[in-house]
């Protein structure tokens, strides 16, 4: 189990930095609780500035919480020594939003995928190469792609490499930060299908950070809704999406444009009707 218990995180606010002295700390997230079980996908949704990426990175021990703690299988990440943290991190990996900057532009794909084995003494050079080729295949790419450089791949392909690297050391948990936000729907569907498949095969616990409620709805078991650094609502997806209790969650759900024609969707009067979203499935049924 990977948990965040009452985590608050403050980061220096560079925009307020004076010429001398340190930048003042700005609370990015406050008192956030989050639990990820193996085999489950937890979605974190929120708009820009809600702190959803920050909580994701703090789960990896990249930020030290001001209050609260991040627990990995019963151990507080902050209490670990540098070496223990290094070991613990093998259990949690990350997939990044920007597939371009997450891959070293000067290394070939095959090396990027073989490095995790070599660097940690898990395999010899040639062994690592074979493992890297196996990873390529698992994420649906051809061995020939291994000889390319990241900029020679498409965005969707690069994102697959990011996924392959994240699962290389067989982690128990993965944090995926907005990994489909730059992709076309057709490519997005492929990447999401891959995630689903991996999660089933490895009983991975996954944190899926996204601003896209539709994607979260289709992929996740649980969802956490964040606003201004706080959790405003959390629970099973089915419950939160069908019966949102928080006003902000309701507002968010209402604002999502479904690919369904509704002439009055933009009307102010309709926006006050909190039943709208839950009624939609029947609206779809009527159209068919």
């Amino acid at each position, binding site marked *: 189990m990977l948990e965040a218990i009452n985590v608050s995180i403050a980061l220096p606010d560079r925009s307020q930095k004076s010429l001398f002295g340190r930048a003042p700390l700005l609370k990015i997230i406050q008192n956030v609780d989050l639990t990820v079980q193996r085999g489950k996908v937890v979605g974190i949704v929120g708009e820009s500035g809600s702190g959803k990426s920050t909580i994701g990175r703090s789960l990896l021990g990249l930020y030290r919480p001001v209050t609260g703690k991040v627990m990995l299988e019963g151990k507080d990440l902050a209490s670990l020594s540098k070496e223990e943290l290094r070991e613990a991190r093998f259990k949690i*990996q990350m997939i990044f939003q920007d597939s371009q*900057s*997450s891959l070293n*532009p*000067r290394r070939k794909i095959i090396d990027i995928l073989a490095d995790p084995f070599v660097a*940690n003494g898990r395999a010899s050079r040639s062994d690592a190469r074979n493992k890297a080729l196996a990873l390529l295949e698992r994420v649906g790419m051809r061995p020939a792609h291994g000889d390319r450089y990241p*900029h020679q791949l498409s965005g969707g392909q690069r994102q697959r490499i990011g996924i392959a690297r994240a699962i290389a050391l067989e982690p128990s948990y993965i944090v995926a930060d907005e990994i489909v936000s730059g992709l076309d729907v057709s490519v997005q569907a492929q990447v999401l299908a891959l995630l689903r498949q991996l999660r089933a095969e490895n009983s991975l616990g996954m944190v899926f950070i996204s601003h896209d409620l539709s994607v979260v709805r289709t992929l996740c078991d649980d969802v956490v809704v964040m606003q201004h650094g706080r959790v405003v609502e959390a629970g099973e997806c089915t419950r939160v999406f069908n019966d949102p209790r928080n006003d902000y969650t309701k507002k968010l759900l209402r604002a999502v444009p479904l690919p369904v024609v509704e002439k009055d969707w933009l009307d102010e009067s309709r926006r006050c009707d909190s039943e709208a979203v839950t009624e939609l499935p029947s609206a779809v049924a009527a159209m068919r």
Partner: protein
Amino acid sequence: MNLTRYVDTAFANPKLLIGGLGLAIIAAIALAAPLLPLQDPLDQSLFAQNLPPFWLPGHDASYLLGTDSLGRDLLSRLVWGARPVLIVMVLGAALSGVVGVIVGLVSGYLGGGSDAVLSRIIEVFMAFPPMLLAIVLVAVVGPGLYAVVISIALIGWTRFARVVRAEVLVLREQDFITAAHLLGYRWFRILFQELLPNIIPMVLALLALEMGRAIVVEAILAFIGFSTSDMATWGGILADGRNYIYQAWWIMTLPIFAITLSVLTLSLLADGLRLALDPVIRR
């Protein structure tokens, strides 16, 4: 990769081709000077002062490019002058590069206190006019080729340090470095495998530029009499010619031509390297 592909690549990047060839020619001339059928560059002749080169009236066939005010053969002095240029260019640029890259890497990668101290030191060094540093150094070490090399390094290292530091600061924030930390890579792997390959192309381009600057600094120091006096130098010819511009303008013209050509060559090489090694521009 086969030969034709090399040729194709070379012609696709003419700047690299011309720059590289030019550098090779300078090196070849410098190395071959003793083998060439030339007069002794230090031999003076009172009967052949300020002789013009072969295309001007009044020239002497035994001095192809004419003579200087002491009657020394200019062609020979130009060719032999390439030797100190080669030494200074290679050593000076290498020394500034090594010092600058190390300081830049440490400063950018470690950050914090060491960065603050190193950045301040760079700033202090940049607050001196470069020529002043060179003059003071020569005052300390005494004139000579090695004083010139150290002067070049003293002036040049800040350029490398600043650029490398800035680049490391940008790279450090990239996700692939975060990923490397998450995958448990240790610092030397992150430094040498993830960071360094991304910096090397720029460092190579800077080295080429620095070599060009080294040529100029050497010429300047020789011009003001602070370089070696027991070898023919381009700067030495310049200083001689400066005194006779109205009587024998060609004396100064020849080394200017040589220096200009070398500097242009190296700046072409720098541009070419930048183009050739950038994975995104290259395609």
